[in-house]
């Protein structure tokens, strides 16, 4: 065939998993749905890597769906801001599907596999669709797909409490999405367009009118809710806790970050370009909540007894770091924000993969019940150590790099910055406390009885181990994600969508 598929990469990123979803429903025989899902996720990952490498060289990939030029049709655009996250999303989907094979088979009955894996692919397609889209309404459509798919996946949890958790998530998620839609509707009313670049051109003319001001508010709050910014995070902890372990890995790595991406993209390109008032309001809204979230949720994590809930609260604190960087409105701040999305995904997927491995041998993931597990499960525990170190931000791990960039960005801010640096350091100490508490139980606590079980299944260990090693690799060689994040920060600050 003579056609050049590389021209179609942005749309392929979305339609490969999207169109595979209904076909997976038909794959009834054992393992087939899983195998097909893994294959599709890996293909999506390859597409994302291909696009990221082109963006790194300075390309911007642009695509007009249906052959209609923007603003009459829907355009897709992949640049530095979303390229890295596409890698994160498709990578997380592949890692989680591949690395939680046994865990998934233990938690989801075989006859439910086709529907479950269809939802898995829909989640991947929904998140990718939100990322590549350059159209405000199209983002909403794919937000709906990803939300519905994540409700289905979480409801697959073995415990009936998963259903209650997912219902809360559904209510909160729907409010967030509705707020976003109200905001987009108001901007459409004032500009007559849905294309982001076109909006960015037209919004400054009406920036001081009430509907646009409110649109900024609705969109920011709605997406902050989707992103689980403190105190709008109440849905997250139980959702991650009761979800099947594989789903926790997938969602913890990228679920809320896509909402953060849309928040940054829209706020910076539409509202902040040339509107100082909005920038100030944006910073005043996000900064205190981010700081509070970092402190409060790290503290909650210190006292949380359930392993997965502890990790979930830690995630809310990490969203705080990400939005704190963005609220500085500086290039360095945004760089730290985007880089931390990548690095936190590495750390959290390693940690949740370790949790999935532990769950293969422990019925209950209460931290106290894991006493002495390291003796029987040395690899799993080592994965937990590496992931934990990266979460804390120990030099040599990926987490260190983004925290370092964040602290540099904070120091640019003068005296206020010093206070915030102090908060970041205190919260890092809290992270030491909650990671250590688990490690202590794993390594040094005497088990109640004699432990007789083997390590987790080999495939799970290999994947969890590679996820953990990636934390080291990108801690020692952060050049590529750092370069992409810097490029992305420049795009956002420049205001071009």
């Amino acid at each position, binding site marked *: 065939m003579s*056609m050049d598929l590389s021209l179609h990469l942005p749309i392929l990123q979305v339609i490969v998993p999207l169109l595979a*979803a209904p076909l997976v429903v038909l794959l009834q025989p054992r393992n087939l749905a899983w195998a097909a899902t893994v294959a599709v996720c890996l293909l999506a990952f390859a597409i994302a890597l291909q696009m990221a490498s082109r963006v790194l060289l300075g390309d911007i990939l642009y695509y007009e*769906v249906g052959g209609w030029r923007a603003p009459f049709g829907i355009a897709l655009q992949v640049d530095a801001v979303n390229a890295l996250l596409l890698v994160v999303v498709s990578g997380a989907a592949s890692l989680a599907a591949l690395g939680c094979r046994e865990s998934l088979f233990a938690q989801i009955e075989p006859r439910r596999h086709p*529907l479950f894996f269809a939802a898995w692919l829909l989640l991947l397609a929904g998140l990718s669709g939100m990322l590549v889209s350059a159209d405000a309404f199209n983002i909403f*459509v794919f937000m709906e797909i990803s939300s519905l798919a994540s409700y*289905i996946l979480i409801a697959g949890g073995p415990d009936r409490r998963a*259903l*209650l958790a997912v219902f809360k998530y559904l209510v909160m998620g729907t409010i967030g999405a509705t707020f976003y839609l109200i905001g987009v509707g108001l901007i459409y009313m004032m500009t007559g367009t849905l294309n982001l670049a076109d909006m960015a051109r037209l919004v400054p003319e*009406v920036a001081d009118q009430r*509907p646009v001001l409110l649109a900024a508010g609705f969109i920011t709050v709605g997406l902050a809710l989707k992103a689980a910014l403190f105190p709008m995070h109440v849905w997250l902890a139980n959702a991650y806790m009761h979800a099947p372990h594989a789903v926790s890995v997938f969602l913890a790595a990228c679920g809320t970050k896509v909402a953060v991406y849309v928040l940054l993209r829209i706020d910076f390109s539409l509202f902040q370009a040339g509107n100082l008032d909005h920038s100030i309001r944006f910073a005043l809204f996000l900064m205190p909540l981010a700081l509070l979230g970092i402190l409060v949720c790290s503290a909650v994590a210190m006292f949380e007894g359930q392993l997965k809930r502890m990790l979930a609260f830690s995630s809310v604190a990490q969203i705080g770091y990400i939005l704190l960087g963005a609220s500085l409105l500086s290039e360095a701040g945004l760089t730290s924000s985007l880089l931390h999305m990548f690095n936190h995904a590495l750390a959290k997927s390693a940690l949740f993969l370790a949790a999935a491995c532990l769950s293969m041998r422990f019925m209950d993931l209460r931290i106290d019940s894991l006493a002495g597990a390291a003796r029987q499960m040395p690899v799993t525990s080592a994965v937990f150590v590496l992931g934990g170190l990266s979460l804390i931000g120990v030099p040599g791990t990926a987490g260190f790099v983004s925290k370092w960039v964040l602290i540099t960005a904070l120091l640019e801010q003068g005296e206020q910055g010093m206070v915030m640096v102090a908060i970041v350091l205190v919260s890092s100490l809290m992270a030491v406390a909650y990671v250590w508490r688990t490690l202590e139980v794993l390594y040094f606590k005497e088990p109640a009885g004699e432990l007789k079980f083997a390590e987790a299944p080999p495939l799970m260990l290999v994947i969890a181990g590679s996820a953990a090693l990636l934390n080291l690799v990108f801690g020692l060689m952060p050049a590529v994600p750092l370069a992409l994040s810097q490029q992305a920060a420049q795009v956002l600050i420049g205001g071009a969508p």
Partner: protein
Amino acid sequence: MTIIFSLFLLTLLVIIAIAIVHTRNLFVCIALMSIFSLLMAVNFFTLDAADVALTEAAVGAGVTTVIFLTALRLTARREKREGTKASLLSLCVLGITMLLLIYATIDNPTLGDPNAPVHVHVAPYYLEQTYELMGFPNVVTAVLSSFRGYDTLGEVFVVFAAAIGVLFILDARKGTGPEYRPEQAGLKHHLIPKAVGGLLVPFVMLFGLYVQFHGEYGPGGGFQAGAIFATAVILFSLLEGEQAALRAVPRSAQMALVVGGASLYGFVGVLCLLMGGTFLDYSVLMQDPVIGRQVGIVAIEAGVGMAVCGSLLSIYHAFAARHPMEGRDESV
């Protein structure tokens, strides 16, 4: 005159919305929600959005009501009173949101102002170009199926996700026990529903077909047609019992409609891509781009209709198949 009518409608909507929030009787609540949707449909119609009105009437007032009622069968009739603390918080949030939205209306362009931004930017292009590019007059169909066909593809997958979600959670859950299938259910022993309803079914189906294939010329299209078709089958199921409806459209056929419809839409898009256009650029399907677009639109509208009809039916049957007592003893 229209303004007075609209004001009347909107006032009614507010009254009904308050009643919905206030009532603790879930049956009343569902009936009110159906009325709400119907009024909303009339509202859309007075705003000249006939396509949206048709969808709202078919989905909001029709199918959703039946699905709610089948779900109500599984649970208690009355809502339990919650503590006042939570409702105070939500009242505050609602109040603030409402005030903000009212505040936003101060700078709104006037309704129907021809110089409003929405009427001077992309809309004129759609109005002027549709006939030339597509060869048919319904601009709404042109926007939904071609200019913004990618959104519609997304919406079809939203419906698909909803269907597999309901099936995943309700149908395939472990330990549901034997399915509830009383052969005698239905209204066939009630003379009036049987006489009237039986007469309606073929006409509803005929109307569904009309809406499906006439979408390029009048209000309608796959979404509405799928919903109307599903309504006809559900009406049949209410009259003759669920078993009879399942014999007419078995589960495998429902799933085939869902999967086939969604895949058909995607397949058309990929075909455009393989034939040298971008995804969903139907103009490359035929020698003449106008005919190519028409062929593409007819095909994807068929996909939409199939997927929507299949999804609504499988959601309805997933609820209807549950034993009525089941929901009560396993309250979460």
